[in-house]
């Protein structure tokens, strides 16, 4: 029952992300736009390029969707509203999100197109850069919670939210989450200008619809993960828990989408250099600081 409800919520969330994305790009708030776009995509022919790696080409969009759903499975919206409260939840989110990389690699290699392939390998190069920036801030969060349970992580923020307790980790995680969902300005994988859509370039019709759906689910999942790790999850005064979760997740999604609207796209070499030379030392410093803080102010 909870599973069905949460999957429905995930679908609604993905729809809202689509509306918000449309709003940040076009400046108009149209509630029906994603429906029309979806119908248009489903009506179009789903072209298969010449000499594809057929298995990868077919599997990749679904793998993207499945990895987003699996990551969403350990995210609690209220104390009870969670699909599975795994004892290693905070690690499992990472494990599920790494398969986004695998999906994009397959989508890049499968269709046998130059732009798609560059996009796919680019994502691999980037992931090596910021994968550490996802894992290391989560390590610091888990250190404070003294548990890998995601519900326990939220409970541990009852006094002070992690965004105040470890702001450095929040910034790093937020940037890395945006890069993982290939949102602008980190959309090097699907950059519209230089790669003509990158990994999306060779997809059309139903397959592209699944691919886009997977990406929307990924964005909402990452926003939810940011909320439970840093913004105190369902906690907040007056309103009931589910309302706080909804408000926070939508707010984070909006900020994620708006941030890219006003920034130029980063060069991939720059992103790699910044992540390695600045991001990883900062993440290590964050772990050290949180370690000291946990000992001093538990």
């Amino acid at each position, binding site marked *: 029952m909870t599973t069905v409800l949460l999957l429905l919520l995930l679908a609604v969330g993905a729809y809202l992300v689509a509306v918000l994305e449309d709003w940040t790009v076009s400046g108009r708030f149209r509630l029906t736009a994603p429906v029309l776009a979806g119908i248009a995509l489903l009506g179009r022919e789903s072209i298969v390029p010449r000499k594809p*790696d057929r298995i990868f080409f077919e599997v990749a969009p679904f793998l993207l969707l499945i990895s987003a759903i699996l990551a969403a499975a350990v995210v609690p919206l209220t104390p009870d509203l969670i699909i599975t409260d795994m*004892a290693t939840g905070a690690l499992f989110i*990472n*494990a599920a999100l790494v398969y986004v*990389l*695998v999906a994009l*690699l397959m989508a890049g290699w499968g269709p046998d197109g130059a732009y798609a392939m560059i996009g796919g*390998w680019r994502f*691999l190069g980037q*992931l090596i850069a910021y994968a550490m920036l996802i894992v290391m801030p989560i390590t610091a969060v888990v250190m404070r919670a003294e548990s890998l349970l995601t519900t326990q992580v939220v409970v541990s923020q009852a006094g002070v939210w992690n965004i105040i307790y470890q702001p450095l980790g929040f910034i790093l995680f937020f940037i890395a989450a945006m890069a993982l969902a290939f949102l602008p300005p980190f959309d090097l994988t699907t950059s519209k200008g230089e790669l003509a859509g990158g990994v999306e370039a060779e997809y059309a019709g139903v397959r592209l619809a699944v691919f886009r759906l997977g990406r929307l689910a990924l964005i909402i999942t990452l926003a939810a993960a940011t909320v439970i790790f840093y913004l105190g999850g369902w906690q907040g005064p007056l309103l009931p828990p589910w309302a706080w979760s909804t408000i926070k997740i939508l707010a984070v999604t909006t900020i994620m989408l708006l941030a890219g609207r006003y920034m130029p796209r980063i060069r991939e070499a720059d992103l790699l250099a910044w992540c390695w030379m600045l991001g990883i030392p900062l993440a290590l410093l964050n772990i050290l600081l949180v370690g000291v803080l946990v000992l001093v102010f538990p």
Partner: protein
Amino acid sequence: MTAQMFFIGFFGLAGVWFGIVVFRTFSMVRSALALLFSQTALGAMFLSMQAEFLGVLQIMMMATEMSIMAIFMVMFMMDPGGLGEMDMTHQKRLSLGAGIVSFVAAVAVAVFVDWGPVASVSPDAAQQTIDLGLELLGRSMLIFETAGITILTAMIAATAVAIQPVKRTREQ
């Protein structure tokens, strides 16, 4: 036949099958991703053996590792797409024999050794994680630290070996 038995058998079979696919396909990216799915199946097998932390860790680690393997395959093979169906093997009969002999020997050991009493219950997942953490930072700390230092050494050594040698010439 219990559910656990079924899942161990199923994921084990999947792991071995993907492992065989690694050496049977001509496409290098397929080969690397087959290895990835083999390892993922093993991770799922760990999960069905109630080793939750190890299973999740395996699933997470191998995805990055094998993706990196895929890009190296594409870099270093002459025919990464496998469209030419080039034969990239040698001493086939010897290696097949060695593989089968080692498989049979290992199975014989597994079957004929008396493993003693088998435990039916294991600690629950949260307890396991706590135990493992205490083990890592307690009795086995020295071993774990040694592993960390070894990784650091390997990283430095690999970078030192792989880095482009600077040519010091007077012409420029």
